[in-house]
């Protein structure tokens, strides 16, 4: 079984190695001549304005949780799709009920304006 996943682990190792090498090499080889001007946070070349921490709108959170819910819905579709023929009509109706309830969820979010960006 682990031979099946060997390419995955190889890729994970290579990706980690490349990322680590990039960061360590740039920090080792790159010249460092800091001046006070260079240490200012860069903001389009002009002097920085506003607070250090920008607070995000709650809209991003709502979009993220909508994504999570429908992501989980999609996860349950994969095993169902691979077993579609074996499960027959029973599996079809079962998934239809599941998707109907999640369709109600989508309609609710839509009607509440959760899908609108500006409000």
């Amino acid at each position, binding site marked *: 079984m682990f031979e099946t996943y060997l390419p995955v682990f190889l890729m994970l190792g290579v990706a980690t190695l490349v990322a680590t090498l990039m960061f360590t090499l740039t920090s080792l080889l790159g010249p460092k001549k800091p001046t006070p001007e260079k240490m200012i946070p860069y903001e389009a070349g002009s002097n920085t304005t506003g607070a250090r*921490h920008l607070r995000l709108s709650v809209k991003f959170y709502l979009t993220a949780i909508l994504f999570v819910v429908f992501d989980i819905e999609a996860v349950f579709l994969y095993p169902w799709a691979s077993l579609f023929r074996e499960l027959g009509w029973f599996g079809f109706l079962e998934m239809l009920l599941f998707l109907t309830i999640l369709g109600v969820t989508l309609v609710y979010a839509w009607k509440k304006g959760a899908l609108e960006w500006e409000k």
Partner: protein
Amino acid sequence: MSSSTLLFCVCAFFALAGAVGTVSARRPLRAAMALLAHIVALAGLYLTLHAQLLAAIQLLVYAGAIVVLFVFVIMLIGPASETSGSGRAGMVRMTSLVLMGMVTVTIAFAIVDTDPAAPRLPAGYGDVEGVGGALYTQGLVPFEIISITLLVAIIGAVAVARGKTAVEKQIEAKEKARAEVEARLGEGAAPAPAE
């Protein structure tokens, strides 16, 4: 050492390191990144348990979506969350130690009870067809309850992010009524509050 033992040791090390980092990091974003490392290592541990589908879902949902959600929440809360100064740190530590001890003892009893000569796993255990077959035939009710749970999650999120509570609606109605009265009183009265 077999390849599965090696995988278990590496993944267990990273899972423990990630878990310790999650609870000990002072900066919330670093804690979230440690949680990401823990989740990826946990996916590797699922592979050692022949739960391939669960490992894939762990990466897809937890590493992909849940960590993103945590990062969003950290960005929403802002720098106020970076200070962890609370006077009850000692009590919290004691409680977590006691809870951890209870979980450890439970796991130890479970391990003692397991039969080492367990029967071999059936073919297809833990893969897409195996899990799907169990879920869509024997686990029908839990599967349908999942959709209702997701519906509740969306209602909660919309209520938190969009909805107005009854108190807020009352305040709004009062302010509207007051603004109308002041507008009727004419220019001599105080100007209506800006919308």
